[in-house]
Every structure is written in structure tokens, then in C-alpha cells.
């Protein structure tokens, strides 16, 4: 764990070498012999769904990560490598050939074939099925024909079966990082048994999902109580080191924390903020931290005249003391951010916003006045997410350092804030958060800042940025794509449509009964690594 954290934070080329030697090292208390047949108990919240294409929150995807094995996973340098796939190749980034490893079977004995993937993806993309993750398939040719109330087609024209273990995916536009996307939950296969008729999910499948992963369901999903899985011995891939997992459902993390303290629960994925200050004493080296993919920013309505000047935006950024806020308000449970992408993705560079990220009140004030920034600043946020403290602190800093009036404006829920933003109501600056869908720079840049990005609420539009993103998508190799994305990030740094403030961090802990507890890029406990102590 310690090694991986270093790798992710510094993103040195060295990380690859370190990563290779990291296999044996584990986090936390490494003492005690491990018991390969014991079950471990992991805290989750009630999943919303347990169908791969419908699951887009961490609790559901944690359970699915036990039941399914992904096509690709990510190494220490956050680059993809094949798991259930033998190879994922393309000569032009447009037509991708996926070859599957032989020997994978579903938990009901059914063989995993190309059809298992095609059926699942077609089901996920078909709009009337209302799947939460359907947008993951939008890059595949024919996606538009599956949208609307009465879609023209039922299957994606871009998916073609070649033989039992091979299929091709034709994308609408070349996309160099398609292989990286395939590690996400939405791309798992489904067995024939999951469907009652072609394209119709069998009733009750969700209550006991059948996958092809290292664990199989033990009983059914007991809502609000637990989901139990046991090791699937016919799994051909890397074998888990525990006999089973009980995902225990908690509504409040404080309850889970009390259970971990008394060894009634093995892993808590998010230690509640109120317990963070004592966690290190309570748990000792069983309290762990690792970088998470989330990024918190303060965004500008760039469509409004007073914030249209990048100099104004930079001055505001320079007047905020990120380090102080992360330390005093977040108790180091998050990390200060000075880039637009998270350290967990390949291509991350530290401090891309340069001078705008330095806390320099004197220069900030001079710049702000020279650029004619507004006399009154409003910071909008959702009142239900625990944001008041840092918004108020930021406001106080802006008041003191820029000599402006500043007020925090709480909207009841995030949805209310979005409604106002969509209507382009004047809300002043507003907070935004982003959690990646797949570990790629593109995922941090495209949806948020491209002119027609799905979550671009700032009205930001820069043709140069859009061009670089398109070039990145069409690049012939992943490394070349990263270069283009980095150039695009530099454009953002010049324009500063949002102020990067903080990276998220996983603050997790475990009981004395487990070891080698690690968190993956999607904020899930790595179920192949965790071990039970005898």
C-alpha cells in the first residue's frame, strides 16, 4: 500500500519498477498466519442495483467486483492490463478486437463467450431498459439508434461476434483509450440465464447475480442487511485468499466504525469525518489512506461578464490558501489540488495550474483590482453535503485577501444547484465534484470542459481545447493520447474555468482479523489481495 501511494502521488516513471516489487508488501498489520477459508466482512451501503450496466455507485460496484472479473484491470502505474481478455487490440483506434481467455465459466456452469458480452452491452445501451451506465456505450457505433422512446434498433451495430471467444467493437469515432474504459463495471458480461427472453432481463436476476468472477452469490441479496459471496473454485484467474466475503450494509458510517473498533466488522471503507481525528490512535497502523479519484473544484460561471476574464479567475485562485483549508477543516482527509486531473490516472502532472495555485494574497489583490473583478462574490453549494465549513473558510480568505464582500449561498440539495445552473441563474461561483468513470485523463477533461460536455455547467468553450481532446482520442497510442491531453490541460490552466481545490482520499480502516487491505482506483477493496488472520 505504502508503495502504491507513493507511486500514485508522484507518478514518477520509477513507479512502474516499484510496483513490480510491491506485490508482496501489504498494508497494516501484516502479522499472523492467514486463513484461506475464512470469510471477511466489509462495510457497504445498500446498493442501488446489482446489474453491471445499472450499477454506478461504489457499494454496488464493490459487490459486483466480487462476482465478476473485468476484461482489463489497472497496474501500479494506473495503466490497463488484460484480465478476462486475452487481448484488446486495434490498428486504427476505431475497430477494436477483443479476444477472450478460454476457460472462464459463469457460476451456473455456463461458458463465457463473446455473446455473453454482446448481450450484456446491448442490454445496457438500449434506452428503454433505463440503465444507469448506458452512457458508457455511447462511443460504440449505432448507440444513437438505441436511444429515444421507440429506438430504431435493439442491438448496437458496432458489436460483431467473430467466433466464440472473439468479437469486434466498432466505435463511432476513433478513441485511443477504449481499452482503458473496459475495466469499468458496465463492461462485465451476462450469462444467458440472466435473460428471460433476448434483451429482457430475467426477473430476480438482480437478487442473486450470476457472474464469472472469483466469488459466487451465497443466497440472495438481503436488502438493508447483507450480501454474502463465497469463493468460486472453478475460477481460472488469480485466486482470492479468503473463503468468502460478507458485504454488510450500513446506513451510517459511525455504526460501522464502532463495529470495526470492536472487531465485529473487518473493513470500513470510509471512516466518518468525526472519527478521523482519533482514527490513528484507535486503529494504529490499521488506519490507512490512499488517493481517491475524486476532485473538488470551485467553478466559475464563465458566461457571466464579471467572471469572463481569466485574470479575475486566477486572482481568486491565488487568494485561496488550499493547504490551510485542507489541514484545518479537512484534517488532512483530503489533499490540496493544483491540477485538473487526479493523481490516480496515468498522465497526471503535479501543479499544472502553476502560479495560479500559489497562495499569494498581495499579488492576488493587485491582479484582481487591475482586472476589475466584482466587488461582491457569492459561493454556492449544496447544503446537505457538509460543505458549509470550507465554503465559509474560503469566503473569509477572499474577504481578507481581496477586500471583497463574500457570502456562501446554500442550495438545499445538489439537484437544486444543478437546476439553477442549467437555467443559467446567477449563483456566483459554485462548488463541483468529479469522480472518474475510468482512469483516463480524458474522463476528467471531456465531460467537464469540452464545449458540449455533459457536465460543463460553466459555459466554458475553447476551440483549441476541443481540438486537442479530439486529437487525443484519435491518437495512435495511449502515450501519444496522454501528450495531447496534457496539452489540453495546459490550455485549461491558462483559462482556469474552475479552481482545482482538493483531491479526495480514501480513509479506511480494518479490524485485527484481516490484513493486506488495499483500495483500488474505483474506491473498492481489492478482494483478491485481502487475507483473513487466523
Amino acid at each position, binding site marked *: 500500500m505504502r508503495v502504491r501511494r507513493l507511486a500514485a502521488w508522484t507518478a514518477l516513471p520509477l513507479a512502474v519498477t516499484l510496483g513490480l516489487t510491491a506485490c508482496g508488501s501489504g498494508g497494516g498489520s501484516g502479522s499472523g498466519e492467514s486463513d484461506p477459508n475464512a470469510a471477511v466482512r466489509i462495510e457497504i451501503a445498500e446498493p442501488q442495483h446489482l446489474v453491471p450496466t445499472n450499477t454506478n455507485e461504489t457499494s454496488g460496484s464493490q459487490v459486483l467486483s466480487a462476482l465478476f472479473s473485468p476484461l482489463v484491470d489497472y497496474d501500479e502505474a494506473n495503466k490497463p492490463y488484460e484480465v478476462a481478455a486475452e487481448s484488446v487490440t486495434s490498428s486504427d483506434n476505431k475497430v477494436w478486437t477483443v479476444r477472450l481467455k478460454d476457460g472462464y465459466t459463469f457460476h451456473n456452469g455456463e461458458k463465457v463467450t463473446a455473446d455473453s458480452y454482446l448481450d450484456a452491452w446491448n442490454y445496457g445501451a438500449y434506452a428503454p431498459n*433505463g440503465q444507469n451506465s448506458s452512457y458508457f456505450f455511447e462511443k460504440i457505433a449505432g448507440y444513437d439508434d438505441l436511444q429515444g422512446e421507440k429506438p430504431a434498433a435493439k442491438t448496437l451495430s458496432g458489436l460483431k461476434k467473430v467466433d466464440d471467444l472473439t468479437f469486434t467493437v466498432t466505435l463511432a469515432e476513433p478513441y485511443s483509450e477504449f481499452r482503458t474504459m473496459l475495466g469499468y463495471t458496465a463492461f462485465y458480461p451476462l450469462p444467458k440465464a440472466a435473460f428471460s427472453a433476448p434483451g429482457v432481463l430475467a426477473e430476480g436476476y438482480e437478487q442473486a447475480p450470476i457472474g464469472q468472477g472469483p466469488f459466487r452469490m451465497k443466497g440472495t441479496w438481503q436488502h*438493508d442487511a447483507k450480501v454474502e459471496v463465497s469463493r468460486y473454485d472453478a475460477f481460472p484467474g488469480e485466486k482470492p485468499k479468503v473463503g468468502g466475503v460478507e458485504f454488510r450494509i450500513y446506513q451510517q458510517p459511525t455504526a460501522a466504525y464502532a463495529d470495526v473498533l470492536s472487531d465485529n466488522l473487518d473493513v470500513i471503507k470510509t471512516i466518518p469525518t468525526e472519527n478521523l481525528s482519533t482514527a490513528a490512535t484507535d486503529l494504529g497502523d490499521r488506519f490507512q489512506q490512499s488517493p481517491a479519484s475524486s476532485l473538488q473544484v470551485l467553478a466559475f460561471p464563465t458566461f457571466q461578464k464579471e467572471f469572463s476574464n481569466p485574470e479575475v479567475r486566477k486572482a481568486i485562485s491565488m487568494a485561496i490558501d488550499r493547504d490551510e483549508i485542507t489541514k484545518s477543516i479537512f484534517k488532512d482527509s483530503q489533499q490540496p489540488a493544483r491540477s485538473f486531473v487526479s493523481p490516480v490516472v496515468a498522465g497526471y502532472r503535479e501543479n499544472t495550474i502553476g502560479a495560479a495555485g500559489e497562495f499569494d494574497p498581495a499579488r492576488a489583490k493587485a491582479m484582481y483590482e487591475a482586472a476589475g473583478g466584482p466587488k461582491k462574490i457569492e459561493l454556492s453549494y449544496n447544503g446537505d453535503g457538509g460543505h458549509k465549513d470550507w465554503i465559509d473558510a474560503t469566503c473569509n480568505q477572499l474577504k481578507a485577501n481581496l477586500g471583497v464582500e463574500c457570502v456562501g449561498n446554500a442550495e438545499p440539495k445538489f439537484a*437544486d444547484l444543478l437546476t439553477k445552473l442549467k437555467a443559467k441563474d446567477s449563483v456566483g461561483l459554485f462548488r463541483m465534484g468529479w469522480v472518474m468513470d475510468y482512469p483516463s485523463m480524458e474522463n476528467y477533461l471531456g465531460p467537464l470542459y469540452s464545449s458540449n460536455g455533459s457536465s460543463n455547467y460553466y459555459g466554458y468553450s475553447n476551440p483549441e481545447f476541443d481540438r486537442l481532446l479530439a486529437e487525443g482520442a484519435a491518437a495512435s497510442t495511449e502515450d501519444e493520447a496522454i501528450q495531447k491531453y496534457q496539452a489540453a490541460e495546459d490550455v485549461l490552466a491558462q483559462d482556469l474555468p474552475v479552481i482545482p481545490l482538493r483531491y479526495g482520499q480514501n480513509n479506511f480502516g480494518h479490524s485485527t482479523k484481516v490484513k493486506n487491505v488495499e483500495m483500488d482506483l474505483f474506491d473498492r477493496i481489492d478482494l483478491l489481495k485481502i487475507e483473513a488472520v487466523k
Partner: protein
Amino acid sequence: MLRFILRRLLQMVLAFFGTTLIVYALMFAGQGDPIQALAEERPVTAAQRAYLTEKYHLDATGVGGFFYRYFDYISNLLRGDLGQSLTGRQIGDILAAAWPVTVKLALIAMVVTVVFGVTAGVIAGIRRASVFDNSTLVLTLLVLGIPTIVLAPLAQYFLGVRWQLFPPTAGADPDLYALLLPGIVLGSLSLATALRLTRTSVAENLRADYVRTARSKGLVKRRIVGVHVLRNSLIPVITFLGVELGNLMSGAIITEGVFNIPGVGFNLFRGIRTEDGPLVVGIVSVLVVVYLVSNLVVDVLYAVLDPRIRYE
């Protein structure tokens, strides 16, 4: 008596529909964007939005939309279908899973209240101004002053984590022992109230004429207190306990959260947070029935305790 019960039952039907209408209207009026609330801060795709809007008639807005959705809900309700929550689960199933554990918890709290509260209240009432009376007075003041939101985590930390006397959380299918601590915490507030109510009532009745008569008849003290005083003193306590039963079931939001018991309060909290109208209305409707029934039982008990009370 029978006519009284029958009339009350008929009134209950009206009260039931009245409350569902009010709760439904409140949830409807307070509803922002339940689809986004469900997705928290994740983006919602147009396809997903269209699917949920269609499925739950979320596009029916305004007064017309309200009555359309309300009557749709009621007609399903009459067919025994409570509808689906926004995550697609049957609300009937959610309630069926949530009620047993909440009822168990409330009963434990009730037993604790009656056994400790009423007993201590009687003793304190008999020995007025004694050390026992004064110390219970201070203790109950203390308990009444500490809100559950403080008491529950404190009890969990000290009795569950620190000294490990009880399991710190109960979970979905708890045994009696695991429910004991949450039950005591939940019952402690009503325990304090019941104790003080009983004490005052007993102390007052001990000075009543009929007690003097009984004493002068030469009845033993145990019989005077056990039959004459207690029976008359319990009327206000029973009234309180009847209302409290409903409170214990609906008011366990904090206790159920702290001890991770997926009961009614737990689901109510989730329903409100995710703006899940049908779920909240379903839970509240059942709670209304609980209140109505427990009040009816209280009224019937009056007649049992005090023969002077007659229902026509």
C-alpha cells in the same frame, strides 16, 4: 362497547385517507428533483431521466398532476400494492422487512419502560421525599435532558466498544441480546416520563378518600397499593404509553441509525433523504394505523381500569 369500537374503526378509515392525502401532498410539494437526489452528485443521462420520469409519472405536476398521482397511488393501495421505490424495490417488501425488527425494538423499549419506569415510580410515590425518590428525580432529569442523538452514541461507545458488554450494532436479524442496548436507549426517555407520571399519580392517590377508607377497613398495605391505588394511578400512565408506542416506532430514526438496525426509522430517513415520495407515504400510512390502533386500545383499557367509564 362493540358499537364504540366499530365507530372508532370507521373513523380510522377516514383518518387514514386524510393523512395519506396530507403526507402525499407534502411530499409532492417538497419534491425537487428525485432523480438527481437518487444519483446524488453523479450526472444523470437523458435516457435514465426519461425512463424514471415515465415509470413514476414524474412529469405529472401542478394540481392536476397531484390528483392524478394521488389517485393512482390510492387505487394501487386499495389493491394491496404500495408501489415501488425509486430504486425499483417493492415498498411492500421493504415494509415487511422493516416492521418486525422495529416492533421488536419498540416492545423491548416498552417493557423496559413499564418494568423499570412504573415500578420505580410506584416506589418513589409511596416513599415520597425519601433518598430513593430524590435520586430518581435527579436521574430522570438527567435522562430527560440528554437527547437520544447524544445518548445513543455514548452508550454505544462505552457499553459496546469500550467495555464490550453489548454488541455495538444490532444488524438486520438481531437476537434479543443485541437489541437490548438499543431498546434501553430508545426506552430511556419514555422510562423517565413514565416514572415521574406514575410517581405523581401514586402520591396523589395515596391521599385520596378511598385509600383512607380502605385503611380504616383494616386492609393490608399491599392490597391497598396493589389493587386500589395502582389501578387508579395507571390511567394517565396508560394514556401516555399508548401514544408512546407510536412514538417509539416512528421515533427510532436516530437509534436505528446509530445501532444499524434496518427498521422503519432507518427507511423513513432514507426515503426523506432521497425524496422517495411513495416510500415515505407508505411508511407514514402504516405509522398512522399504529397510532390509531394503540389509541383505541388505550380507550378500551380505560373502561377496564375504571368501571365508571362506559362507552356507548
